[in-house]
């Protein structure tokens, strides 16, 4: 188990890079630190590695307080964005470097390096120099180097951002497979939400040096804690429509510039007593039905773009002041051609929300439904 308590890091001139970071996760789990650049995710990782000294707070591996230990005393393996292989050593010596530092005899450490290389399918590269390897191969070598010492924690600092898109998917599956094989607790830093969703058991989303939400990929996607997380997760991005809460004869309504929809029963409970509050409706592109004619509680969307994405048809347009993207559902009554024609004429379609959208407070950005 790894426990991070109230971690805070200030740099020179009082720049606060991290503030009140609290994370706890189990042995063997795979955690992602996700966020835009400058959010503090790499700083967090470096504090866990011991490469940076936190200003305050503590880090525990199991019950061992490692906050003030040097990196070499923490039993961690680390993979860097640029791989950071030692350019003057053969691959096998790169992998065995940490074992050499422990004073393990050459034959033994080479044997261990060979075993680890076999697991990562790079045995044929052991006698080469790092400069002779491709990016993907260097990546595997740096994984082998991090894992050969059987670390308690594996830290991955944007390990795939230098790879091309196809290799990225291959390597990320590989990392996940090895991680599960060895059962090593792992933390990955990434700015790619798709990567984080695909690999991690739980994701911590950071912004401005604070954790915005620490949850499973599913929860982050379906129940984002605030507008930042909602903006960050999912592709296409969530749609945001301004509205306000209205109460009429005990029924709660959401009123926008051009529409009024009834809040579903489950939602109404959470919104009780919030009449008059300015909110944002957060709805994903597949969380609504598309009609060709207006009906009760529909929202009018002025079409501006119709795209055929192969698997889906995606339309976009203006709804009040918001740009809204909708994935056309399978049960749509019209056709692609019809939509194209409609757009050419400057026409509209009508959206009917499903019941699983989210509502955020417009001022604080907090999700009002959780």
């Amino acid at each position, binding site marked *: 188990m790894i426990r991070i308590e109230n971690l805070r890091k200030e740099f020179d001139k009082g720049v606060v890079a991290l503030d009140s970071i609290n994370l706890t996760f189990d042995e063997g789990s795979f955690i992602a630190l996700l966020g835009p650049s400058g959010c503090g995710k790499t700083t967090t990782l470096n504090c866990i*590695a*011991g*490469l940076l000294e936190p200003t305050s707070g503590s880090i525990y591996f199991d019950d061992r307080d490692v906050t003030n230990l*040097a*990196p*070499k005393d923490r039993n*961690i*393996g*680390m993979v*860097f*964005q*640029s791989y*950071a*292989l*030692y*350019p*003057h*050593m053969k691959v096998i010596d790169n992998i065995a*470097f*940490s074992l050499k*530092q*422990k004073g393990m005899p050459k034959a033994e450490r080479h044997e261990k390096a060979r075993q680890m290389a076999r697991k990562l399918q790079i045995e044929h590269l052991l006698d080469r120099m790092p*400069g002779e390897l491709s990016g993907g191969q260097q990546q595997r070598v740096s994984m082998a*180097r*991090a894992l050969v*010492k059987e670390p308690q924690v594996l830290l991955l600092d944007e390990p795939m951002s230098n790879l091309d898109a196809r290799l990225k998917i291959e390597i990320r599956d590989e990392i996940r497979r090895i991680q599960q094989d060895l059962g090593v607790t792992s933390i990955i830093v990434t700015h790619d939400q798709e990567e984080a969703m695909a690999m991690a058991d739980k994701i911590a989303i950071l912004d401005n040096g604070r954790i915005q939400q620490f949850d499973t990929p599913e929860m982050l996607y379906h129940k984002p804690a605030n507008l930042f997380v909602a903006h960050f997760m999912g592709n296409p991005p969530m749609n945001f429509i301004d509205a306000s809460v209205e109460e009429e004869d005990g029924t709660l309504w959401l009123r926008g510039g051009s529409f009024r929809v009834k809040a579903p029963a489950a939602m109404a409970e959470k919104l009780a007593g919030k009449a008059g509050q300015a909110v944002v409706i957060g709805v994903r592109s597949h969380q609504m039905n598309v009609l060709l004619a207006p009906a009760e509680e529909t929202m009018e969307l002025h079409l501006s773009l119709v795209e055929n994405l192969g698997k889906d048809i995606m339309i976009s347009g203006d709804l009040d002041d918001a740009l809204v993207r909708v994935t056309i559902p399978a049960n749509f009554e019209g056709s692609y051609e019809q939509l194209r024609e409609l757009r050419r004429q400057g026409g509209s379609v009508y959206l009917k929300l499903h019941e699983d959208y989210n509502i955020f407070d417009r001022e604080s950005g907090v999700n009002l439904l959780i």
Partner: protein
Amino acid sequence: MKQNMRQKNMQAYLFLSPFLVFITVLYILPAILTVIMAFTSLDSAFIWKFNGINNFRKILMDPNTPIIAWNTVKYVGITIFLTVVLDLFFAIMTTYFIRDERKGNIFKSILMIPMITPGVVYSVLWLWLLEATPNGLANKVYMALGGSEPLNWIAQYPFVIIIAATLLTSIAYGTTVFSSAVKSIPENQFRAARVDGAGEWEIVRNIILPNLRFHITFIALWETLGLLTNYVTIMLITNGGPGVQTEVWALSAYHKAFSDSQYGYGAAISLVLIVVVMVLMLVIGAVMHHQEKSRS
């Protein structure tokens, strides 16, 4: 297109030609003259008379030659070794251990002072410092520490003194080169090594030094060139003495040619040095080429 390129080339040659002329007149011609002179018995009478390889035979016969050759090897070898070691020490200290670039640079600027001081001024400072009378600074310190008699430092430790004086002027260059080399090592390599269990000394040994191996070779060869041909410091401080204790090859060429007016003989001694230097330059070229190749 092709015409255009040729015109551009012509222009480049045009711009370069003044320098080419200067170099030819001031450098290559004297060099050729020196080579020719090496096979003559030219002396103060200024009669060009070829005497075959007599001058070279004379070099071999001279009982001082082995001493001078050994002095040169000793002087260059010890100075190079100490220069490279000190360069590495200062570069690693100022760039790797002192993370504050400004403080490191202040220190490096101080190291540069001897290098930018004119050789004559610098040597006179040494003479003044090591004066044999009780008024010399070294003697004042020595006597304050309990020495009974003022020492004639230069007469007593001539070799140590010329090496120390040369050393001070040569460390700035290598330190600068090594510093920028240390700086260009990606930070993540240090981090990886630290995570892998390396202490600071292991990082120096396993990461920094191997990364600097080409720079070290280059500086060693480059400084060797400089030391082989430059004799100003020695000439001004000891002038090769006492006796021939600090006479090195280049200085002996100067002495033979200009003190004894044996121009032909002096030229022959220089020619031997030129051959050695040319071989060294070929080695440098090969090293640089190898470095380019292993980088790409």
